[in-house]
């Protein structure tokens, strides 16, 4: 192939990407648009006369919600890791009996709609007094990530050479120490991958937040945006500014850890 068709392809690629990302551009554009120009006809394609009033409103009103989301995300990561990593080890290396049915259950678990889980949790939390609590949301959000985490850890850990574990045993290490000092450090990439997804899912969750935390004093950012939409529909710059801010941490995290994710994704993606 000569260079010219390639340049042509690059141009086409840029065009496709631009079309695909237009809604994202529009979100940013609207977030800087003045309220009076919001319903202008024709719309302002570029915020020539930008305002930061939307962002100021967000930082004024939504900062606690961002903190809550962060807390829920990190809590969900911790809970997921604590449960999934040892279980992955048990399933891959310790020859737990009943592995097949357990794997099957984990797969089925991923098919259950969140709205169904939300109803069950609502009924339980109402009794426990866990409604509108951060702990309640952390637990609910982790149900999305735990089956994923267990299956990912199991797959990864079964790739760890037996010799490595055997060597630790010979040195007199118990199962726990082997897990802690050999298996976990080796599984660093999958830990990052699982953490990343657990965080992203918890951060983006709307269904659990809107059902289990609707009246909480601490609401996550997704619910903050939702309540925004319900209340001030002419201030779309504030809504979109909140949306931009809510997108930033997720994107930053992915950019920072993209190497790990790419490794995790492509390694297991397709059968060779």
């Amino acid at each position: 192939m000569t260079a010219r068709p390639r340049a042509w392809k690059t141009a086409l690629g840029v065009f496709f990407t631009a079309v695909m990302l237009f809604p994202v551009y529009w979100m940013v554009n609207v977030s800087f648009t003045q309220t009076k120009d919001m319903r202008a006809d024709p719309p302002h394609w570029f915020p020539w006369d930008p305002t930061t009033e939307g962002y100021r409103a967000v930082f004024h009103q939504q900062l606690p919600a961002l903190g809550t989301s962060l807390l829920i995300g990190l809590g969900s990561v911790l809970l997921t890791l604590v449960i999934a990593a040892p279980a992955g080890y048990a399933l891959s290396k310790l020859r737990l009996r009943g592995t097949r049915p357990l794997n099957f259950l984990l797969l089925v678990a991923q098919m259950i709609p969140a709205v169904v889980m939300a109803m069950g949790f609502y009924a339980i939390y109402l009794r426990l007094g866990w409604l509108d609590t951060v702990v309640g949301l952390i637990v609910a959000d982790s149900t999305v990530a735990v089956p994923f985490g267990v299956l990912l850890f199991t797959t990864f850990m079964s790739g760890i050479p037996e010799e490595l574990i055997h060597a630790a045993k010979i040195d007199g290490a118990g199962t726990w120490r082997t897990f802690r000092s050999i298996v976990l450090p080796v599984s660093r990439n999958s830990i990052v991958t699982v953490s990343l997804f657990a965080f992203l899912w918890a951060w983006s969750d709307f269904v659990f937040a809107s059902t289990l935390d609707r009246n909480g004093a601490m609401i996550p950012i997704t619910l903050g945006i939702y309540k925004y939409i319900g209340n001030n529909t002419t201030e779309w710059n504030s809504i979109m500014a909140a949306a931009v801010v809510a997108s930033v941490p997720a994107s930053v995290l992915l950019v920072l850890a993209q190497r790990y994710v790419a490794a995790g994704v492509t390694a297991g993606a397709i059968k060779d």
Partner: protein
Amino acid sequence: MRATQTPPVGSPGTPGREAAITSPPGPGPRPAGRRIRSTQWAAVAFAAPLLVYLVAFYAFPLYRNIELSVHDYTIRAFVQGNAKFVGLSNYADIVSSQTFLPALRNTALFTLVSIAFQYAIGLGLAVFFRNNFRLSGVLRGMFLIPWLLPLIVSASTWSWMLNSDSGIVNSVLQAFGIGQINWLTSPGMALVSVIIANIWLGIPFNLVILYSGLQNISPDIDEAAALDGAGGWKRFWHITFPLLRPVSAITLLLGLIYTLKVVDVIWIMTTGGPGDVSTTLAVWSYREAFGTGQPAFSPASAVGNLLILIALVFGIVYLYLQRRQEES
């Protein structure tokens, strides 16, 4: 590689965009029986948190959900816990409800049309990006952005873009002389609108999976065919596409299972309305339980359980396909 691990990362437009991985490999060749027994206690101990977790946070909520669906829970009974047992009458009620058939039809349309377009566009882009041109890696990375955004962000952006009076989409259409389309508020367009947004959300997932599927097809085969004089389209259709079939099947099925569950995109854009025209089973369940301020958990959980049944059917097809692929 020993692991057959399909879609590693999340799925298109789903509530939490849950990811799924297929079953990990079973235990390897078994060593001597004695060693199994000696590690069995440790294995149980390591798996114990998971087992407790599954019982407490999966089995119990699901049990509660089934229980809700066979009782008549009013707000009062919900709190006092003395709901009347009504057997399957909630199920009979929802099936005979005016919303049932439209919701079933919308669920089918939403799911099938979404995944068909997601797949077709995702595959087209994957093939396109397979040519390593300048910036292809960067651009492919940027395609992930829609997938990363919290769904509420994407959904609210789309609903503003599709706003009847002040949305950018109508404004562009008007420039071409097309009159105002009430995307989100007319019975003909509401479902189309949420499908469009959902397709957009699912393209990155399909692109990533199909792209890595393509990467695993040896370029030699393609080159050999090219030497034989086969044209680009013919090569794709007769060689690449059949080789990609297992990956395609699993991508489509996963898309199906996850699209069935979608609540937030639809809820944020149209709340399933106007009337019921964009109400799917999942949205219906959400609305009955949480959407009206008058919680009706019993019918809602009946709808939800029905949805689980449907998802399970496709889930089992998926497992079957996957196992067959493992064996081949």
